[in-house]
């Protein structure tokens, strides 16, 4: 067991982390600007989701070192998370149906 062990863990140059730190600042600033400049409609949602996913990817890949990990752990983590996001999307789609039935009931009384 010890033959795979730590001790000689490779580290990265500090610049890698400072770069990602800076990028996260830039992405956060832009996503704040989306609200500050009052972007509306699908442009707003697209930009918010784009910056959100970019930030999440940078944090997981570089700060949490997933980029350098073996595929075993990467796959164990990312597939359930993908399914979770799919579940979120399914439930949001379902809630539009709930809204529709509520509007029918409140307005038409049926």
């Amino acid at each position, binding site marked *: *067991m010890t*033959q*795979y*062990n*730590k001790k*000689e*863990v490779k*580290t*990265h140059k*500090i610049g890698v*982390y*400072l770069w*990602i*730190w800076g990028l*996260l*600042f830039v992405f*956060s600033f832009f*996503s*704040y600007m*989306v*609200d*500050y400049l009052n972007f509306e409609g699908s442009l707003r*949602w697209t930009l*918010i*989701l784009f*910056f*959100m996913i970019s*930030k*999440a990817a940078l*944090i*997981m890949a*570089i*700060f*949490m*070192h997933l980029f350098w*990990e*073996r*595929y*075993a*752990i990467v*796959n*164990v*983590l990312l597939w*359930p*998370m993908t399914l*979770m*996001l799919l*579940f*979120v999307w399914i*439930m*949001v789609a*379902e*809630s*539009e149906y*709930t*809204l529709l039935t*509520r*509007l029918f009931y*409140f307005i038409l009384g049926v």
Partner: protein
Amino acid sequence: MSRAIDKLPKGWSGLTSDFGSDQKTFKGMQWGKAMMWIFLLSDAFIFSCFLISYLTGRASTTVPWPDASVVFGLDVFGTSVPLLLIAIMTFILISSSGTMAIAVKYGYEKNRKLCAIFLLLTALGGVAFVGMQAFEWTKLIFHEGVRPWGNPFGAVQFGSFFFMITGFHGTHVTVGVIFLLIMARKTWRGDFEKGRRGYFTTMKSNYVAIEIMGLYWHFVDLVWVFIFAFFYLW
């Protein structure tokens, strides 16, 4: 320096050979780190339950949802700036994630003092974040009258989702700060150099503990990225 792990197959063939091997699947990964990842995955399940209930609750209500940029706006010298406090909190949490990543790096390089200093900086960022969140809650509860069952801005569900989600996240930050302080003390004392045994365990301390701490802290930041996008900007 050649390591045993470098001789194992990489990429997709590494995936199949790791899962097909005996003894352990996650090669080269200390068990505590693998367990932290599994815990974080289960924590992600909890937060996604919140996300689902929030998004469906918001999308299915017939009453207009409160405008977050007005509710969370801040008056600066008479002009109202939307989401100012939230933006500052976001930058603080990202910065504390940056200092945490650097602390992990210095830990593995056995730079004891710099590692402890960056851990303390990270804890400081966490404290600032929780403090600003307490300020935000006070403002909403006492000055605006937001309650879990109602608020003056719109849909009644707003309060319950807000307090539940940001409260759960704030709890995570608080727990993280406590553990960061414990880790900073252990690091400063040189536990990881001497391999001093932990309080709850007979196993020897190792700088992997700093990376495990880092995984938790980055996850807290990761959750905030989603809260920031879906709750405050949406």
